[in-house]
């Protein structure tokens, strides 16, 4: 397992993706799993930096990578005010198709096998994702 703490800036997205890529390859993950992990990490860390911590560099993003027997698990936690994922409009609805934002969660759900969100008692938002082997 690898635990990483990242500052709330856009560069952390690339940094997180590089670390995850390296870890996934060292664990012998297939190209399909490595691609899904890369995409899910980029989207979730970008959400945590932008929408969670709102670029506040006094707050960090916590990333955990875990190569488990049933698959590759990722958790990403921010320390913002949290939100309800159900409130995010469906980007594939006709009225949302031409909106510039709002597709990250769709990508995470499409490429990972399990995606769950929780609002920890001490604040922020935590997303846990699993890509099965």
């Amino acid at each position: 397992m690898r635990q990483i703490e990242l500052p709330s800036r856009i560069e952390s997205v690339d940094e997180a993706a590089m670390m995850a890529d390296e870890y996934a390859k060292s664990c012998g993950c297939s190209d399909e799993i490595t691609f899904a992990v890369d995409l899910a990490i980029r989207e979730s860390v970008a959400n945590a930096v932008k929408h969670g911590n709102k670029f506040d560099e006094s707050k960090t993003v916590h990333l955990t990578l875990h190569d488990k027997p049933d698959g590759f698990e990722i958790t990403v936690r921010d320390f913002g005010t949290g939100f309800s994922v159900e409130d995010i409009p469906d980007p594939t609805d006709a009225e949302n198709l031409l909106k510039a934002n709002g597709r990250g969660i769709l990508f995470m759900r499409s490429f990972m096998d399990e995606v769950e969100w929780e609002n920890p008692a001490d604040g922020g938002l935590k997303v846990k994702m699993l890509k099965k082997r």
Partner: protein
Amino acid sequence: MADITITERQAGDVTILDLVGKVTIGEGSVALRNTIRRLLGEGKNKILLNLGGVGYIDSSGIGELVSSFTAVKKEGGVLKLLSLTQKIQDLLAITKLLTVFDTFDDEPSALASYN
């Protein structure tokens, strides 16, 4: 090293942008936005984005394609996509944006479609 390089070519009144690299949150998306804005400022509103050299695109990059499409349309122009990789095609399918963009596998067909 920059995330993306954008090379501009002209074919008649169509401006072709060859994108090589990543269109992701931050530099890659901003570079595309700035290029489209500049072209529209120069009155060039028939634009073909060649994505054959784009190895990676995230949701911000997809959002930038959509913003570019709407910005060009607002100026009375047309923006189309050329040479989508399988991964980009998959992402556009998931987001149902294949129903929005005109996409082409080869440049002559893409250019002919502007006439």
